[in-house]
């Protein structure tokens, strides 16, 4: 079996998506993974060939096209790693390790699927929605809840709409779409649905996922949550990115290796 080793890929594009320069889209050319790439997996990127920032940074995969070998990542500049990545230019070479981690499992085709994205949690759900559509899900079955603090956070709204799924934009301040948390929109929209016919996929900030977990479990929905954590190694050995489990808070799972996708009720958030 071929080994997953770091590859140097060239940056095809790395451009900001909003006026404030908070969100960026990175496209990497010639990414030749030795295993198939699935929605929910991540790549571990060395943002600069330097000892500072020291660790790689994990980014969820927004899209990968095996034919063109183009990998797409959408990120928000939040700290040293992402601000270093943001100044990398087209043509630079970038050290990429992956794909790593597990993946979203495919919901049964009889279900109403709610994709619940908060903040910068939307990229893997775009990739997942595409995959579900290509597996024969109809656009009517897929409800994409896309939440942000304010209108300018919904940077990929047009693209998500173009997928042909039902899109429910939400903003905390009511500047666009539903006024309130994305989790409230989900619960309102699904209130009349048969809980057994609902499947949830969630990705976003941890407080949002905690709310989603609690309200979805109370309704009896099944589903999966994709988590984020600072990951020193990304391959399951350093035991740095652990989370306690809901059943036993002294038992830990590794976000990078046992996840990043977990069953709805698996992890204590």
């Amino acid at each position, binding site marked *: 079996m071929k080994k997953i080793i*770091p590859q140097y890929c060239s940056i095809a594009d790395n451009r900001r998506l909003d006026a404030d320069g908070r969100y960026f889209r990175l496209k990497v050319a010639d990414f030749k993974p030795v295993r198939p790439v699935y929605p929910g997996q991540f790549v571990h990127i060395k943002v600069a060939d330097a*000892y500072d920032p020291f660790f*790689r940074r994990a980014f969820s995969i927004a899209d990968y096209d095996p034919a063109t070998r183009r990998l797409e990542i959408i990120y928000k500049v939040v700290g040293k790693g992402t601000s270093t990545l943001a100044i990398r230019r087209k043509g630079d070479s970038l050290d990429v390790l992956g794909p790593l981690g597990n993946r979203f499992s495919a919901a049964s085709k009889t279900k109403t699927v709610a994709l619940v994205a908060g903040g910068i949690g939307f990229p893997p759900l775009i990739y997942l929605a595409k995959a579900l559509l290509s597996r024969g899900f109809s656009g009517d079955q897929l409800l994409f809840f896309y939440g942000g603090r304010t209108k300018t956070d919904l940077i990929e709204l047009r693209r998500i709409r173009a997928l042909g799924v039902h899109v429910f934009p939400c903003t905390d301040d009511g500047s666009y779409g539903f006024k309130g948390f994305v989790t409230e929109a989900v619960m309102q929209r699904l209130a009349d649905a048969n809980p057994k016919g609902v499947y949830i996929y969630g990705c976003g900030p941890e407080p949002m996922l905690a709310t989603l977990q609690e309200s979805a479990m109370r309704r009896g929905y099944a589903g999966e949550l994709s988590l984020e954590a600072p990951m*020193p*190694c990304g*391959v399951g050995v350093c035991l740095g*990115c652990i989370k306690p489990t809901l059943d036993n808070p002294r038992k830990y799972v590794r976000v990078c290796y046992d996840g990043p996708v977990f069953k709805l009720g698996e992890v204590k958030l």
Partner: protein
Amino acid sequence: MKPDLRVDIAGVTFKNPVLTASGTFGYGEEFADLIDLDALGGIVTKSITLHERPGHPPPRTCETAAGMLNAIGLANVGIERFIDEKIPFLKTLDTVIIVNVAGSTIGEYVEVCRRLEKAGHVDMIELNVSCPNVDEGGMEFGTDEASLIRIMTAVREVTTRPIIAKLSPNVTSIVAMARAAKEGGASAVSLINTLVGMAVNVHDWRPSLSNTTGGLSGPAIKPVAVAMVYKVARAVDIPIIGIGGITTPADAVEFHLVGARAIQIGTANFIDPDAGMKIIAGLRQYLAERRLGSIHDIIGKVKTSS
């Protein structure tokens, strides 16, 4: 001619001097998808204790300038599950298997080593007497000469395997600790373990680790490690395995020059799972370029004026 990278420590032959450091390589199996494990000189497992340990709550790691802090808290499956679940994989590998052992009492260290002796398929034992992140035991045994001699002697009685004492840099005299390890029956010493460190989040004023302090590792500590290997090599007649921030082939060469017979790759495994492979190839190239036939041609050959 291909330079000869083989080294021998306490009768155990390593195909090359590049090993992986405890706590940075899991139980080996985690890296099976990432590198050819048989190409390594040896694998040092995560610390094994008598009972399974969940480890500290998060956050357990923190990035620092050219390094990291960790306080994992010796999370491991315990000796019973290690023997049942991890040794079957390790014994399929064509590389030297070194099991790192930790405990909170001398009795625990002894019991783990006794069971390893019975289980077989283990080439050497590395005694972790230098973990800075647990309240009891660990570093206490590695910072007091009398305690170190006591624990080495006790473990020596229950195993026929060569024992490597992994030494802490958090001591007044690393040379005194290396001497004590030898007196207690250690066949080799490995150094250094992590340096005690701390970081504080300036936004919420909390320590960056749940354990408050942790162990500093990575390129940031390399000069400290090189100096300690150098001092021990000059003062104590015992094989040394050098550890501390080794990331590139040149780093490995530096450790060999000051007297390390073998080296361990630690934190670099997190950044580049392929680091060990690159260092093996780089060492070979370094020797070939200088028309040196063997790794022994550089071990301890630092040119100091004193």
